[in-house]
C-alpha cells in the first residue's frame, strides 16, 4: 500500500476554491509525461459502452420498470406568484387508480432552496410544486392533477430582470430583490487612472437570453424502499450528491440511500442539483408501500429545472494606441429566477486578458420564473460574448488586428490570485487556429463583400477552470482470468467516463481495453468520486484509476517475485506479462499470478493526489468562426468553426472531438437559435416544447475543426489532462458575433442573433 496522508486539498469548482479534508497519496500520483509513449491513452478507442447504447440494451433511469411500480405526476403553480389559501385533494384521491396525494398539508416541512420548502404554500413562479400524485398509471396521475382544487391568493409578480431590481417590484424573499441582498463586486487597480491614460474608450451594452438545458432524457427517478433503506435510480450528474441530499431531506443515514445512474441521457448542468421530484417520489413510495417512478414532461423541464440566466452587461474598455488595455469596467444584471442563484457572468473579464485596472459589479435579481442553474460553463458564454465583442470594437478603433490585439494583452499569470498557471498554451492555440481558418484572409473592411450574401471571420478566446481534484477514489479488481473490473462512484453523462477509466487502467497494466470492465454510477459499489460538473470528471478520476492500477502492478510484481524466487528488481513487466530479466524462468501472465493466490483476486483502491499548491489550473482556447449572412433575409449561417484549445493531454481523440463538436454546436445554438420566451402579462413561459424552443438539427451542422495543443499538463495532475466539457461552448457565440460584424459591418449586441435583429441593425 502506498503512503497516504490526510490533508486539506483544494480545487476550483467554477470560481469557488473548495477545500476538503481528504485522504491523498502522500507522494502524489506518478506522472504520465508527455514523452511517455502510450499504447491506449490518447488513442481513438471506441466507447466501451457503445454496444449498450446502440443496441437499446442500456437501461436508463427512464427505462427502469419495477414490479408493482406506481407512477407520479406533479401539480404545479399556474400563477407566477400566489399563495395557497386552501387545497382540497379529496376528488383526486377518490379517482380510481389514485394511490396517494401529497401536499404541504400532509408532509413535514422539508427545507429547500435556503428559505423555502419542498412544498411551499408560497408559490413564487408558474411551475412551483404544489402537490404530487401517485397512481397506477401516468395517465391516471395526470387526470388526478386536474381534480385537485386549489384556492389561490394571486399576488403581483415580476418577470423582467431589470424591473425586478426596482423599488416598485414585489419582494418575495427576506433578503429583498437581489440575491444575497446586494451586488457582488470585484476590483483591482485604479480604473479612473486607467481610463485617463487610454487613447481610446469604447462603451456598449450587451444582452443575452435565458436558455434552457433540455437534455434528451427527461429528469426522472425511480425509488424503492426496502424497510428503512432506499434505492434511487436517478438521471443525475452526481450520484453521491443525490445520495447525501436525499438522505438529509428524509432524515436518513447516508448509508441507507443507494443511488444508481448507470446510463443517463444528458445533463449540461441541469442534473447537478437533487430534484424535488426525487424526494416527492420517495415520500409517496413510503406512503403507498410500492416503488414509484416519476418522470418530468418536456414542459416541466422547460419550467422547473433550471436555465442559463439572461444578462444585461454594460461594458467600458480603455486602451492605448499600441493596444495595451488600460481599464475595463462592467456592470451586469441577470435573473436568478424565483430562488437563490448567482447570475454572474463577469468572470472572463477578470482573468482572460491582461489588464491592471478592472472594476466589476454583478446584480442577480429575483424574478417570478424558474430558478437558474449551472448550465455548461456558467456565466462564460455570456461574459465572453460581451468581452470579445467590445474588444473587437476597440481593436478596430485603434486599427489593430483582433488577434494581434489579444496577443498584446496576453495574461501570463492569473491576475486575481497572482499565481502562475500550471500551463497556458494559448499562444500556440492562437497560432494553430489562425493558420487553419486562414485568418490572414479576413476582410479588412467589414461588410465589404459585394452582393446580398456576405461572409465574415471572427474570433474569441476561452478561459475555464476544470482542474478537478481530490477526493476521488477508484477501485480495481484483478480477476483470475486476468481481466480487470474497475469500480468508481463517478458517472458518465455521455462524456465517456466509462471509456477513459478503462483506457487508463489498460495503459498502466498494458493489457487490451477489451479485458477491462467498468462499473460506475452506483453509490453502493464505487468509492467516492465528485459530481460530473465544472469539467472535473476526467482530471479527477483518471489519476485515481492510474494510482489503483499502479498499485496492482506493484502487487503483481511482488507476487511474481515470490513465485519465481527472484528479486523484484530482476523482473520486467511488459504487456501484462512478467519476465525475468535474464530470461531464466518462464514468464508469468498477470492471470497466472492471481490464479495462484488463495483469494484468486487482487483488489486495490487508488486516490487522486492533491492539486499543486501555489498554481492556478485552467484551460484555454480560441475559436475562429466563418459565417455567411444573407442581408436580404437576415439569416446567419455558420460555415465553419476552428477550435484550438489547450486542455492538456488528450485522453481519447474520438471522444474529445465529439465533446468539442457538441459544445460548439450548442454554442452556435446559443448564438443564433435558442431563447426562453416569457409573456410579460401572464408571467408564463411560452415555448416549453422542442418545437417552439429552437435547438439545432443535424442540417445546421457547420464544418468543425478541433485542434488541441499537443502537451501533457503533468504539473496539474498525473495524467496531464484538463477537463474539456465546458471549454468548447465558451467562445463560440462571441466568435460568431464577431464574424457577423466582419460580414455585414454592423454589430449585433444581443443574443440570439436572429434574422429580425440582423435586418433591424442593417436598416438602422
Amino acid at each position, binding site marked *: 500500500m502506498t503512503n497516504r496522508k490526510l490533508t486539506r486539498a483544494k480545487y476550483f469548482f467554477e470560481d469557488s476554491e473548495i477545500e476538503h479534508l481528504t485522504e491523498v497519496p502522500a507522494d502524489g500520483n506518478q506522472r504520465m509525461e508527455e514523452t511517455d509513449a502510450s499504447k491506449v491513452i490518447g488513442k481513438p478507442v*471506441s*466507447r466501451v*459502452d*457503445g*454496444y*449498450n*447504447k*446502440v*443496441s*437499446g*440494451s442500456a*437501461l*436508463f433511469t*427512464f*427505462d427502469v*420498470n419495477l*414490479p*408493482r*411500480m*406506481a407512477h407520479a405526476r406533479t401539480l404545479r403553480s399556474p400563477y407566477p406568484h400566489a399563495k395557497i389559501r386552501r387545497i382540497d385533494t379529496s376528488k383526486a384521491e377518490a379517482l*380510481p387508480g389514485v394511490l396517494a396525494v401529497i401536499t404541504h398539508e400532509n408532509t413535514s416541512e422539508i427545507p429547500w432552496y435556503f428559505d423555502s420548502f419542498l412544498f411551499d404554500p408560497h408559490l413564487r413562479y408558474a411551475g412551483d410544486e404544489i402537490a404530487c400524485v401517485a397512481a*397506477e*398509471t401516468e*395517465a391516471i396521475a395526470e387526470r388526478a392533477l386536474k381534480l385537485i382544487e386549489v384556492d389561490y391568493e394571486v399576488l403581483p409578480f415580476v418577470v423582467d430582470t431589470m424591473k425586478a431590481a426596482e423599488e416598485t417590484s414585489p419582494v418575495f424573499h427576506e433578503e429583498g430583490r437581489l440575491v444575497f441582498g446586494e451586488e457582488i463586486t470585484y476590483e483591482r487597480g485604479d480604473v479612473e487612472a486607467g481610463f485617463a491614460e487610454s487613447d481610446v474608450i469604447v462603451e456598449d451594452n450587451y444582452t443575452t437570453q435565458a436558455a434552457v*438545458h*433540455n*437534455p*434528451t*432524457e*427527461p429528469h426522472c427517478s425511480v425509488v424503492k424502499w426496502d424497510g428503512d433503506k432506499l434505492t434511487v435510480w436517478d438521471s443525475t450528474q452526481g450520484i453521491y450528491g443525490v445520495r447525501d441530499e436525499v438522505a438529509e431531506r428524509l432524515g436518513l443515514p447516508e448509508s441507507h440511500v443507494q443511488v444508481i445512474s448507470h*446510463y*443517463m*441521457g*444528458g445533463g449540461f448542468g441541469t442534473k447537478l442539483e437533487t430534484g424535488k421530484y426525487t424526494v416527492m417520489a420517495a415520500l409517496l413510495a413510503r406512503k403507498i408501500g410500492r416503488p414509484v417512478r416519476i418522470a418530468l*414532461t*418536456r414542459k416541466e423541464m422547460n419550467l422547473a429545472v433550471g436555465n442559463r440566466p439572461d444578462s444585461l452587461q454594460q461594458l467600458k474598455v480603455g486602451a492605448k494606441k499600441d493596444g495595451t488595455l488600460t481599464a475595463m469596467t462592467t456592470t451586469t444584471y441577470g435573473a436568478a429566477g424565483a430562488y437563490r442563484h448567482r447570475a454572474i457572468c463577469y468572470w472572463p473579464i477578470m482573468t482572460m486578458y491582461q489588464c491592471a485596472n478592472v472594476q466589476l459589479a454583478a446584480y442577480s435579481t429575483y424574478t417570478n420564473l424558474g430558478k437558474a442553474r449551472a448550465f455548461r460553463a456558467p456565466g462564460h458564454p455570456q461574459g465572453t460574448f460581451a468581452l470579445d465583442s467590445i474588444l473587437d470594437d476597440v481593436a478596430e478603433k485603434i486599427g489593430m488586428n483582433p488577434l494581434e490585439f489579444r496577443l498584446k494583452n496576453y495574461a501570463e499569470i492569473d491576475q486575481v490570485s497572482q499565481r502562475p498557471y500550471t500551463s497556458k498554451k494559448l499562444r500556440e492555440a492562437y497560432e494553430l487556429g489562425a493558420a487553419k481558418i486562414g485568418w490572414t484572409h479576413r476582410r479588412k473592411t467589414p461588410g465589404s463583400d459585394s452582393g446580398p450574401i456576405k461572409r465574415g471571420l471572427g474570433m474569441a478566446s476561452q478561459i475555464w477552470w476544470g482542474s478537478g481534484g481530490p477526493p476521488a477514489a477508484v477501485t480495481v479488481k484483478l480477476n483470475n482470468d486476468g481481466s480487470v473490473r474497475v469500480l468508481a462512484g463517478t458517472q458518465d453523462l*455521455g*462524456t465517456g467516463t466509462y471509456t477513459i477509466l478503462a483506457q487508463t487502467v489498460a495503459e498502466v497494466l498494458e493489457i487490451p481495453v477489451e479485458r477491462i470492465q467498468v462499473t460506475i454510477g452506483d453509490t453502493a459499489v464505487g468509492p467516492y468520486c465528485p459530481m460530473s460538473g465544472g469539467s472535473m470528471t476526467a482530471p479527477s478520476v483518471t489519476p485515481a484509476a492510474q494510482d489503483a492500477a499502479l498499485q496492482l502492478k506493484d502487487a503483481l510484481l511482488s507476487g511474481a517475485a515470490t513465485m519465481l524466487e527472484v528479486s523484484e528488481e530482476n523482473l520486467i513487466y511488459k504487456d501484462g506479462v512478467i519476465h525475468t530479466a535474464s530470461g531464466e524462468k518462464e514468464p508469468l501472465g498477470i492471470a497466472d499470478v492471481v490464479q495462484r493466490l488463495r483469494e484468486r483476486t487482487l483488489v486495490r483502491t487508488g486516490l487522486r493526489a492533491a492539486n499543486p499548491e501555489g498554481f492556478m489550473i485552467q484551460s484555454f482556447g480560441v475559436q475562429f468562426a466563418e459565417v455567411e449572412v444573407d442581408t436580404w433575409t437576415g439569416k446567419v449561417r455558420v460555415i465553419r468553426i476552428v477550435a484550438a484549445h489547450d486542455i492538456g493531454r488528450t485522453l481519447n481523440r*474520438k*471522444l474529445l*472531438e*465529439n*465533446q468539442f*463538436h*457538441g*459544445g*460548439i*454546436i*450548442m454554442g452556435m*445554438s446559443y448564438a443564433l437559435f435558442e431563447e426562453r420566451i416569457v409573456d410579460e402579462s401572464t408571467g408564463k413561459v411560452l415555448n416549453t*416544447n*422542442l*418545437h417552439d424552443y429552437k*435547438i*439545432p*438539427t*443535424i*442540417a*445546421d*451542422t457547420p464544418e468543425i475543426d478541433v485542434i488541441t495543443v499537443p502537451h501533457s499538463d503533468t504539473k496539474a495532475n498525473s495524467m496531464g489532462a484538463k477537463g474539456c466539457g465546458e471549454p468548447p461552448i465558451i467562445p463560440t457565440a462571441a466568435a460568431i458575433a464577431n464574424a457577423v460584424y466582419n460580414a455585414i459591418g454592423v454589430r449585433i449586441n444581443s443574443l440570439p442573433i436572429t434574422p429580425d435583429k440582423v435586418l433591424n441593425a442593417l436598416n438602422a
Partner: protein
Amino acid sequence: MNSDEKKDRMTRRQFIKTSTLTTVGTVILTKVPLLSGESASGEGIQDNGRKQLLSLTVNDKPVRLLIEPRTTLAEVLRDHLKLTGTKISCNRGQCGSCTVLMNGKAVYSCHMLALDAAGSNVTTIEGLLSGEELHPLQQAFVNHDGLQCGFCTPGQIMAAQALLLKHPKPTKPQVLEAMSGNLCRCAAYPKIIDSVLGTNK
C-alpha cells in the same frame, strides 16, 4: 352504481365476450397469445371497458394485445412489450427519440396511436440485432462514435435505417434531410453523419 357505470360494465362484458371468441379463434390459427392490455404498473386498475384489440408485427413476431384506444405506439412498445430501447423524450412528435420503422418507413411512435399501427410491421432498435450481434449500422455508430449520452441514439439509428432502406448509398444532403427530424442535444451530429455515411464503407 349509477346508470353510466352500469352501461360501461355491460359494454365491457359484451366486449370481452366478443373479443374472447375472436382470441380463441386467432390463437388456434396463429398461436399468438393475447397479452394483457395492462402495463406492469396497471395492477388492479379499473378497466373502463373501452379496450380494443390490437394486432401487429413487432420485430418479425406477431403481437396481439388489448389496449386503451388512447395508447400510443411508443407506449405499447415500451410499457406493454418492454422494448425500452425506443425512447420517449418530448412525447409529442418533435424530437425523434421514439423513431421506429413501420413498414420500412420512419415514424414517431410517440405521436401515433397504436391502433393506427394495426396490421403493420414495426421494427425497433432491438429488431436490428441478430441475436446479440449488432447490425452493421449499429456497429457504424460505435465505430464512428455517433452518439454521446445515447438517449436519442436508437431513434437516430432507426431514422438512418429508414434512409438506407430507400437509398443504400446516401449522399450527405440525403443524410441531413432524412435525419433532420431527430434532435440530439449532445449534438453528436458530425459523427452521426460519419456513422451513416460510413456504414457502407
